[in-house]
């Protein structure tokens, strides 16, 4: 009954609007206005509106930077992250300069050249010099970004190691992460889906000589200042290991291994003292307290960033960056697969 009355109301509303439109159109044609042709008054109003709303948009972008800019991730906690951020800042500077020049010009021209009776537009077909100019300027700016970008990229992907990186496997499945440390030999034992069963969640092949000292854990501890080489595997669908605070991301693909290496530079204890992070935590805890939820203490976190199923939004692992001593002490407490399997 309720639905029927709503439908009847909607139909009546549409009929009313139709009739009102009919009347307004008939009356405007009686007054001699040419139906729906753009009049000089329309050009004037719309041109002014374009300037007003257009500049309003440009200003609101400034307001958004001011109001929300601080939401951006805190300064990177990895060695290569600093380089990425410098490149990011330059790119952002360039695109913002272009944005704040081009958008106001667009809206201003829309206002300035709004149609007026008696004026005739200028017949201006092309200007090769001008066009060459605005081909070359972006080309030059992009050349800088491309060259720098490729440099950073090859540094990321093909790092030159002074010391041997610690090898850790990150293993993804619906909907959780598992870490496997390579132990004293710094070599991961062979693993395959065919060995999965019981406590052997990542499928370590115990026949392999590198396997026995591997350590499987549910949280990720990393020593500060040491290069870490991550090997990624997935057992069911594609997942993506996203470490936003370390400016790192790599997909985990069933059937193949992927790699990413970085060096953490800030321990969890240190970053909790970072001013931006403290403000962030304070703001979040204000919101959580108001809702009666548990207060939050900042931790680095690993997220899944490739759609992987219903609980994709809650596939996470805590990352703890600590001093080398703390890390070694923690590692010593963990059981090797030889002990658990």
């Amino acid at each position: 009954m309720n639905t029927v009355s709503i439908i009847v109301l909607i139909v009546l509303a549409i009929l009313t609007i139709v009739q009102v439109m009919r009347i307004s159109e008939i009356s405007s044609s009686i007054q001699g206005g040419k139906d729906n042709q753009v009049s000089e008054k329309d050009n004037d109003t719309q041109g002014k509106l374009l300037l007003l709303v257009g500049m309003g948009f440009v200003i609101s972008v400034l307001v958004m930077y001011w109001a929300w800019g601080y939401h951006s991730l805190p300064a990177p906690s990895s060695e290569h992250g600093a380089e990425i951020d410098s490149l990011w800042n330059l790119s952002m500077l360039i695109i913002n300069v272009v944005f704040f020049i081009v958008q106001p010009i667009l809206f201003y021209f829309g206002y300035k050249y709004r149609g007026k009776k008696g004026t005739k537009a200028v017949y201006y077909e092309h200007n090769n010099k001008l066009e060459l100019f605005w081909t070359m300027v972006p080309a030059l700016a992009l050349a800088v970004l491309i060259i720098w970008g490729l440099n950073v990229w090859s540094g990321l992907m093909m790092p030159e190691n002074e010391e041997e990186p610690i090898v850790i496997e990150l293993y993804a499945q619906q909907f959780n992460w598992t870490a496997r440390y390579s132990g004293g030999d710094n070599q991961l034992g062979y693993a395959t889906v065919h060995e999965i069963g019981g406590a052997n969640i990542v499928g370590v092949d115990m026949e392999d000589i590198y396997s026995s000292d591997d350590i499987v854990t549910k949280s990720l501890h990393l020593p500060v200042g040491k290069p870490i080489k991550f090997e990624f595997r997935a057992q069911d669908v594609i997942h993506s290991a996203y470490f936003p605070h370390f400016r790192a991301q790599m997909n985990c693909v069933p059937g193949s291994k992927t790699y990413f290496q970085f060096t953490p530079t800030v321990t969890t204890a240190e970053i909790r003292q970072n001013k931006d992070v403290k403000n962030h935590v304070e703001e979040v805890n204000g919101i959580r307290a108001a809702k009666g939820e548990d207060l939050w203490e900042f931790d680095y976190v690993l997220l899944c960033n490739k759609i992987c199923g219903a609980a994709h939004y809650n596939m996470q692992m805590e990352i703890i960056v600590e001093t080398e001593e703390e890390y070694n002490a923690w590692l010593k407490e963990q059981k090797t697969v030889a002990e658990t399997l």
Partner: protein
Amino acid sequence: MSNTSTKNEHFQDHLMEHHHKENFFTKYIFTMDHKMIGKQFLITGMFMGIVGVMMSMLFRLELAYPEQSFPILEFFLGKWAPDGVMDPNMYLALVTIHGTIMVFFVLTAGLSGTFSNLLIPLQIGARDMASGFLNALSYWFFFLSSVVMIASLFVESGPASGGWTVYPPLSALPQAMPGSGAGMTLWLISMTLFIVGSLLGSLNYIVTVVNMRTKGMSMTRLPLTIWAFFVTAILGVLSFPVLLSAALLLMLDRLLGTSFYLSDIFIGGEVLSYSGGSPVLYQHLFWFLGHPEVYIILLPALGISSEVIATNSRKPIFGYRAMVGSILAIAFLSFIVWGHHMFVTGMNPFLGSVFTFTTLLIAIPSAVKAFNYITTLWKGNIQYTPAMLFSIGLVSTFVTGGLTGVILGDSALDINVHDTYFVVAHFHIVMGLSAIFGMFAGVYHWFPKMYGRMMNKSMGYAHFWLTFITAYGVFFPMHFLGMAGLPRRYYSNTAFPMFDNLADINVLITYFAIIGGIAQLIFIFNFFYSIWRGPKASQNPWRANSLEWTTPVEHLHGNWPGDIPVVHRWAYDYSKPGYDEDFVPQNVPLAEGEESGH
């Protein structure tokens, strides 16, 4: 050409014989007239658009108020929103089908299908498409694929929900999520039909533009709309077959147990027998279409706005040759940049470097286009029709969204924000908004040609301003969510306290989305009201130069009652010195001593 004119005479005789025999079915349903087929594409595209936008309003509601109960969700989603709380699987299904519908059904078929069909014959001076039958077939394949896609919403296990890119193994294994069951099979069938329809259409457009231009219509005199549709069709013909192969291989993996994309999988407590395949292969095949697809969507919108901006600025489009050159450059580059969607798949880092290089190059022709639009406005005499406002809106979104591409195309920066809301903001603004603004501009501008009546301009203005403001209101703040590290396709952000302070932004975005969605009702009302009740249009209401405005208002199979017009000049002689009027249609012979220049 003499050959053509005898054919035309023959065609006219043919017309006279048959004209009186049209009934409802031959006129509206199984028509082979390009103008009617264009309208069929438009109405079907609009229907799909309503479905796609409504879905986005539902999942925006969920994102603003995660895990809260809304009776409206239960009303629309039934068992997928028990007690009004949306199921996470349904959330993923909605974003998947929203993406599929908007990208393919609205902005590919609805945009290119509508305006290529309507405008190619009219603007090049042809009586119809090269093959009217293939053209009708193209629409009916599209219609069928729409029916299958809509039907997939109602299957027991839910529609496809692996994201619009449907990466395997997620999309290949029904054990991975319910949406990968029957819903996914229907998705693949629907896309296969869609691609067949799209290929038939594209081949027809190419043949028509190459062979059927009227006397004097050299390639350098073509309106930019036609250039855009022509290049779009070439992109479609070269790239859609690759998606077809990707979809067929995925079907084989799903239905026959082959291992093209699957290997070493343990799911649901057992090891599956697949071995030797690679999910990354699918991504290469998908994005080999997927990136050109972006320009299949965007180029027609740019073509439409070029035409609308020149006409309403009463000026020639600035740098016609540079505009054509940049369309060709963008089209060429679009085939060698697909890897920028895959920087984090673990592909060879050297490949990443190559794709970064080619991707950033696209910024150059894009910048040329943006600057040329702005210079076209300079010293113009701008007539603010709703179409013109939407075209200027397009230039604005094209610039805003294009700029963030400089960040995402750079592999070293992409890993920072890959698959976050920064990406969602980028592609919705540069591709989604630009293309939909172009589509609205096209509808407002060519409505008189389609239906012989005018749309109401006041409602057009209201529609533009509400759409422009709410569209930026929805998508601009998403940049900030992305820079805070918020991943896309998350059902809820509540699992991570670090995102708690972004909840307000999500609420704001949802308000804009709902107002913007409802504002589209103004357009839909205006559209259907004007079809029947709009004031009658004159033959050339915008005082434009191109040939479609030389046809009579009443539609005629064969377009021109007499001979087809002969072209003497390009389409952009607006405000040309030496003429009293500020426009000179293409079929007006050159005055004595006048140089055409084109």
